[in-house]
């Protein structure tokens, strides 16, 4: 694709034809025949019209893409790229890369009032449960994304085993509460501390590693934690997990129907949704705490040191920054937030097992950070909504079965769409949705700098 593009029409058509041909080749094994279990064994149903439709669609899409690119190139040829300028580059991010302050507050407003909006829209707290549960799920990932953002986005340490700390936090609460009967509010900081300690344990052996090698070791670390959880049956219950974990209480007041319960104390009618709403605000609070801590730290010397470490480790050291402590604090803090999120996960579910802490979770969290734009807090939140909420949307696309025929379940295609979305992202927004970095200090006007104008730091 990077070849010198000639944009004459025959060229474009030939190119698109080639694409359609490749699509045809790919379609033969995947789409062309459908296997049905018939009375005499498997029966093949040919679906050539569908193949033709696919190829035609690819052809048209490619032509359209080439035309758009040709127009953009023509426009670019007229205006020199700011990257080539030797005079001061303003580096203003384009509109798509910026989120207006209004959008930011709207986002926060929706998050704060979601239970109210949902119950008004669906007529009561009970029917709104689906939306509030979805909100809790998304916020959990927002928090995990923000936590990982400290390690990956700020300190530039690629961590593929982040879910390990999530698991440590979850098991920490589950074990402490079932064994010693400690309450959630005691366990929450303990889980954070414990996960931070494990963050340091991981940090020490990988101090000298970077990039790909670091990623591999952290990946292994995540798997080790999961395998230990499965095999240390005496402590963790093995693959069966830990069940009947005590539920969250309202600072000591249980959400129960009896006289000491939350509803009776506050003169409300008992509703099992009270706990769900409480959990929603709990995770919202935890997520905002993560965000607040990250934003504060970015302005402090340690946060600045993380960013410098991401940019250039050797330069960092020669400026007198102790890269050992800098890396360890990044690992420990990132892990601590995962620990908080983990202990929230286990108090919400009431049941945990190693199944919940597979590599796929790490991958999703990392994808959220990368899609959001590394180091961007708002980008991570948007990406979490898209990545976690997006697949849920598919459940509600019933009208699609009218198009693709009866029995079409859009949910089965979620991973396919997920992959397509990723490819599209990497083509059009290779540095993430919000690829700007606002300097943490500025003189006078605060100016964001677009990510497109400089090369990545090598560390």
């Amino acid at each position: 694709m990077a070849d010198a593009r000639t944009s004459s029409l025959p060229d474009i058509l030939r190119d698109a034809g080639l694409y359609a041909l490749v699509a045809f080749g790919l379609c033969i094994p995947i789409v062309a025949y459908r296997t049905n279990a018939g009375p005499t064994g498997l029966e093949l149903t040919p679906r050539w019209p569908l193949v033709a439709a696919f190829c035609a669609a690819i052809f048209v899409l490619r032509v359209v893409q080439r035309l758009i690119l040709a127009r953009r190139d023509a426009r670019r040829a007229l205006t020199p790229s700011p990257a080539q300028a030797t005079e001061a580059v303003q580096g203003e991010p384009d509109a798509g890369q910026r989120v207006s302050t209004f959008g930011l507050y709207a986002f926060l407003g929706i998050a704060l009032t979601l239970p109210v909006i949902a119950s008004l829209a669906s007529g009561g707290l009970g029917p709104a449960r689906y939306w509030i549960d979805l909100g809790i799920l998304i916020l959990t990932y927002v928090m995990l994304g923000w936590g990982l953002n400290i390690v990956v986005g700020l300190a530039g340490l690629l961590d593929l085993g982040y879910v390990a700390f999530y698991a440590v936090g979850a098991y920490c609460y589950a074990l402490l509460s079932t064994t010693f009967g400690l309450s959630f509010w005691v366990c929450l900081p303990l889980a954070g501390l414990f996960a931070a300690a494990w963050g340091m344990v991981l940090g020490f052996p990988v101090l000298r590693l970077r990039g790909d090698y670091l990623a591999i070791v952290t990946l292994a670390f995540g798997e080790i934690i999961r395998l230990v959880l499965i095999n240390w049956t005496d402590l963790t219950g093995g693959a069966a997990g830990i069940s009947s974990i005590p539920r969250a209480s309202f600072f000591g007041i249980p959400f129960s129907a009896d006289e000491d319960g939350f509803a009776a104390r506050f003169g409300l009618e008992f509703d099992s949704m009270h706990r769900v709403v409480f959990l929603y605000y709990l995770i919202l609070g935890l997520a905002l705490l993560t965000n607040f801590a990250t934003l504060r730290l970015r302005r402090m010397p340690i946060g600045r040191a993380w960013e410098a470490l991401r940019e250039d480790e050797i330069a960092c050291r020669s400026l007198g920054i102790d890269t050992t402590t800098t890396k360890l604090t990044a690992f420990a803090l990132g892990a601590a937030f995962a620990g908080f999120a983990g202990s929230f996960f286990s108090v919400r579910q009431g049941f945990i097992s190693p199944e919940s802490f597979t590599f796929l979770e790490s991958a999703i969290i990392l994808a959220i950070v990368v899609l959001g734009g590394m180091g961007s807090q708002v980008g991570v939140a948007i990406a979490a909504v898209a990545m976690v909420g997006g697949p849920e949307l598919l459940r509600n696309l019933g009208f699609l079965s009218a198009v693709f025929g009866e029995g079409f379940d859009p949910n089965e295609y979620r991973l396919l769409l997920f992959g397509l979305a990723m490819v599209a992202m990497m083509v059009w927004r290779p540095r993430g949705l919000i690829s700007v970095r606002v300097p943490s200090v500025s003189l006078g006007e605060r100016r964001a700098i677009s990510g497109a104008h400089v090369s990545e730091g090598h560390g």
Partner: protein
Amino acid sequence: MSVAGINVLVEETRARQAAATAPLLAIRDVSTYYGSVAALRGVDLEVGEGEIVTLIGANGAGKSTLMMTIFGAPQARTGSVVYAGQDITRLPTHAIARLGLAQSPEGRRVFPRMSVFENLQMGASLHGGRHFAGDLERVCALFPRLKERLQQRAGTMSGGEQQMLAIGRALMSRPRLLLLDEPSLGLAPLVVKGIFDAIRDLNRQDGMTIFLVEQNAYHALKLAHRGYVLVNGRVTMSGTGRQLLDDPAVKSAYLEGGHGVAAGA
């Protein structure tokens, strides 16, 4: 005043005199290896307070290795590096930097996605911002180009500006000894002249001690009080800048050809 008191005074004066005559940086018989390959073989070198000392040599002679050995990465296998009377041979890099050495590393290594201002702040991080405003003004006076670009991302600047930033960032840590590794690397002759003028000003006006590693032998020797020539990891020659400039061996190895280009600038 008691006799004991006078004795203490005499002792102190002697110590001060000794410190004044002892070099600020002394490299004694240092050998550095990459695995089993020797990059430096028994190098001896001194930098006195207030001097500009330059180290010249061809590609692969070990100039940058010596620079990095002073900073403890890699550490010298034998020999010692003594800075202000303290043996720093086995100290980690960041601890050495805290003693008052600063370097502008080879290839500049500015933080590309951080603004110029933030880069300078990183340089000052040792002092926690106590002298920041004054130091910033000083650096901006030395390199007016940086002042225009404080808000710009460092990675978007030209090579010469990045070099100015790298030196400025090193200066922000208020060093007693400034190490510069090939500040002229890959820069246009006019820009090189500007950088070398700034180095001269730093030394003449502020009395900054500077250890300069250079391939651009003509400029470096003209600027420096003293110079060393490094060949295959060994110091083969040393003397004042003038002596080395006039030395026929140095001339034929490092100046002929290169001289014409430099003079043309």
